[in-house]
């Protein structure tokens, strides 16, 4: 649905994005993750057409995004720092959205009002960060978007609100095949909601994969040996660590395959466990200076 090809973008001397390629399938929930400063927000601003690429192309449904108001009518974007007109209250913003977005749906608005209890006549600038987000989500969902782009979506939302919001977003994914593009630095959240993830580092996308492929290809393996640790070279070991007689390994491969390989060894126990997205992240970026190495203060 969203295709980014060869995207590069610089601001003066600083190259924010370098030859970025992204593929977001229709009705998927795609998470772009990376450390602060890796280029996530710049990428998003290019995708929604706020910034012009220096090089490369961005299409949504095979149609180029930039300066394309008709296409943008079906894209809802919630930035990290939410903007409303300075004097506006929610009623004003609803009225504005209704005028600008032909697909604004009043039936949906009526359904969402009780879910997001907000004062429609109080200036939005007075709302707390979380309440502003509630308002932003309400407006975004009312336009019946084909594509929903969210920069740090859950920042500022309490757990109840988070669940409410995800429930609504997922309903749209299920019923209307809405495509969702999220950027986050919160791996815990992403691993619960995404189908695909892309990992950014210093302006490049270093890895893009379906979440379950990522998760099905690397496992923790715990073995225990009575005597010396035997030759483990038939396993693809990414890291190895021993505590007492227990050997802790991180191994590449599918679960069945690893169990079979481990069964060839004379181990007193075999435990195969999944890794969290954070742990996968660390191993996949192992060679890069991601800055995870411990720092002495």
């Amino acid at each position, binding site marked *: 649905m969203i295709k980014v090809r060869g995207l590069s973008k610089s601001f003066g001397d600083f190259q924010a994005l370098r030859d970025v390629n992204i593929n977001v399938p229709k*009705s*998927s*929930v795609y998470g772009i993750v990376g450390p602060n400063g890796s280029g996530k927000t710049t990428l998003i601003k290019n995708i929604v057409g706020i910034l012009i690429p220096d090089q490369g192309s961005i299409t949504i449904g095979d149609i180029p995004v930039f300066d394309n108001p008709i296409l943008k009518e079906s894209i809802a974007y919630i930035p990290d720092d939410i903007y409303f007109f300075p004097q506006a209250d929610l009623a004003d913003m609803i009225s504005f959205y209704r005028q600008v977005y032909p697909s604004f749906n009043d039936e949906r608005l009526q359904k969402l009002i009780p879910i997001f209890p907000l004062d429609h006549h109080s200036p939005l600038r007075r709302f707390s960060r979380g309440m502003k987000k509630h308002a932003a989500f309400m407006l975004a969902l009312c336009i019946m978007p084909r594509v929903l782009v969210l920069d740090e979506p859950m920042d500022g939302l309490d757990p109840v609100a988070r*669940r*409410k919001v*995800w*429930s609504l977003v*997922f*309903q749209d*994914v*299920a*019923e209307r095949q809405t495509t969702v593009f999220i950027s986050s630095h919160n791996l815990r959240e992403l691993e*619960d*909601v*995404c*189908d695909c993830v892309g990992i950014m580092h210093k302006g490049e996308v270093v890895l893009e994969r379906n979440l*379950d492929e990522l*998760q099905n290809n690397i496992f923790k393996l715990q073995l225990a040996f009575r005597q010396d640790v035997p030759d483990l070279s038939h396993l693809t070991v990414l890291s190895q660590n021993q505590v007492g007689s227990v050997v802790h390994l991180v191994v590449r491969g599918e679960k069945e395959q690893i169990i079979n390989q481990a069964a060839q060894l004379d181990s007193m126990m075999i435990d195969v*466990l*999944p*890794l*969290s997205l954070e742990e996968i992240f660390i191993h996949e970026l192992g060679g890069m200076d991601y800055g995870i190495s411990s720092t002495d203060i």
Partner: protein
Amino acid sequence: MIYIISVDLRNPKPIYEQVRDEIKNLIIRGVLEPDEKIPSVREMAQNLAINPNTIQKAYRDLEAQGFVYQVPGKGTFVQSRAPGQNPGKTEQLIAEITDRVRELIYLGVSKEEIKQVLEDL
């Protein structure tokens, strides 16, 4: 039905496996009966606040393993039980039970007590 299924996000076990295995469990125990309709992907996504693609995956697995069948336009239903269907799976489960029984014996549980568990099922 929805409230019988819950997903523990802190459990390292992948969400789609949790959904799949909980539904499977309900089917095996007879809580869900043959030809009973299970909630749609959309309903599950809405009630559990889980990605519908994840639920779709769980349903596909259940179908591949013969626990449910899908009727296009109507939904997903529990498959009726047919004995002797999956010898490989049977073998695997027997091996797992054997492991567990060994552990029970190691912990000092008598064979009589273990047999009683089987009787009580």
